[in-house]
């Protein structure tokens, strides 16, 4: 099965499953699938940096959180009264936050890069805690009146996922995208060929942050609630693990990773609170087998 076919099949399934679940009186299934799709969007965003640029960013939950808080605050204060405007603002905020973090972190490599992204993630986390007006430690509820209906939300999440996958696919197969991947393999030579690698990566980082911001915004109106916990560093690590399990640097990887993560959460968390151990096993397997992750397993090995 080709990677594109996997993505198309999963998208087709998601397009049908949500509306059927809602009309058939299974709102919880639609709820779970919406969460899965938003997780996948954030994964697609992270994959641009982690997979295609080869940069282990451990602070991406911050961009989800920034988007979530911007959407939650905008909805609560009713600045615009439009979900679209709030979503756009959250997307822009995610991009700007990522550009700021990237402008500093991308000057470093390796361990230093991981630590700086982690540090910025924690700074965002503590900044959210300090927002007394918006619930501080406890987070804030979004007034029910400001929340879209389940089906609308499902449709928005689905559309966002489809757009994210398309944009990522376009970028990855463009000259710009192949150069990002080449720079991951050999930054010095790519620089010597006249490519301002830092700028190229910064742009990818901002797009990545935009996708996470958009996912965070829909996550906020989906849950009707935001809290600093959205940005805590384990969330960033989970996102990294999810992309690696699904298959870094593949189109279908983040979607498969989100699927595995959500499925294990739903199935195993009924039995035990320690379901993440099972996800850990998957992660170890993905690390041992190589970079392909679930995507390679489903699509067959590369080459």
């Amino acid at each position, binding site marked *: 099965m080709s990677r594109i076919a996997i993505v198309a099949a999963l998208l087709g399934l998601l397009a049908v499953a949500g509306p059927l679940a809602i009309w058939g009186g299974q709102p919880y299934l639609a709820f779970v699938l919406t969460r899965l799709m938003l997780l996948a969007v954030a994964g697609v965003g992270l994959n641009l940096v982690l997979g295609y640029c080869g940069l282990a960013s451990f602070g991406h939950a911050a961009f989800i959180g920034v988007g979530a808080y911007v959407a939650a605050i905008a909805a609560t204060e009713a600045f615009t009264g439009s979900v679209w405007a709030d979503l756009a603002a959250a997307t822009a905020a995610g991009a700007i936050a990522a550009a700021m973090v990237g402008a500093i972190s991308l000057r470093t490599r390796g361990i230093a890069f991981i630590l700086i992204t982690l540090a910025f993630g924690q700074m965002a986390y503590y900044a959210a805690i300090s927002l007394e007006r918006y619930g501080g430690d406890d987070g804030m509820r979004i007034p029910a009146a400001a929340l879209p209906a389940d089906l609308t939300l499902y449709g928005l999440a689905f559309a966002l996922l489809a757009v994210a996958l398309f944009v990522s696919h376009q*970028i990855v197969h463009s000259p710009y995208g192949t150069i990002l991947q080449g720079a991951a393999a*050999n930054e010095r*030579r790519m620089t010597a060929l*006249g490519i301002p690698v830092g700028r190229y990566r910064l742009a990818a980082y901002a797009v990545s942050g935009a996708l996470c911001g958009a996912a965070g915004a829909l996550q906020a109106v989906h849950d009707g609630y935001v809290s600093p916990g959205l940005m805590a560093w384990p969330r960033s690590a989970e996102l990294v693990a999810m992309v690696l399990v699904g298959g870094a640097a593949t189109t279908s990887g983040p979607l498969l990773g989100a699927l595995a993560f959500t499925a294990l959460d739903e199935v195993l968390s009924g039995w035990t609170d320690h379901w993440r151990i099972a996800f850990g096993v998957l992660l170890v397997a993905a690390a041992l087998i190589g970079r392909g992750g679930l995507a390679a397993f489903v699509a067959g090995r590369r080459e």
Partner: protein
Amino acid sequence: MSDSILSVTGLVKRFGGVAASAGVDLAVASGELHAIIGPNGSGKTTLLSQIFGEVRPDAGAITFAGRNITGTPIHTRVLMGISRSYQITSNFPYATLRANLAFGLQSHARVAHRFWRRASLSDAMQAEADAILKQVGLSHRADTLVNDLAHGEHRQLELALALSTHPRLLLLDEPFAGLGAAEGKAMVRLIASLKGTHSIILVEHDMDAVFALADRITVLAEGRVLATGSGDDLRTSAAVRAAYLGEP
């Protein structure tokens, strides 16, 4: 020198207490092949890296084609027409040779930033890639993965990558390193074929190659220019023989 394409004046670079460049002056004429020789640690590669912009000098100035480029970023220098090869070959091992060249060709054509089109090369760029591969003698390997190349072929690709950005000035860092006798002869022919159309700075330990190719030679020792002149001038220079050839 008024027709010099590159001039370096008073270049200083210290690493801790060691001066890799201790006031280097160098002028390369347009179309000239200028070899730089000197013992290990004499600052040859550091000089190349400063000309290319990978290492920032502590003092001094670098002028290329009449423009001061001392603080210019690498990508701008490449667009202006400077390119380099590395002593330890540096490429993209899990891509084909053609794909390796595509990066430089797209960079030169200023299409590298395009993010919404397919990455496939235009016919014109495809032809360019083929021409460069032919020039360095790797036509038959165009669709091979770089990882599968032999050492000598890696050396040829290194030169091809340097050529892919259409340079006017080539900085070659030990292109003969590790080549056998026959491969070395082929490399001499290859570099000789670039003379005239390209200005070249050649850092090299292989003296036969240097004397066969160089119009002028600069001898570095401990970060200083010991002498500059033709091969014949230097062969007879007592100072050079003492410092470099290890003769009394």
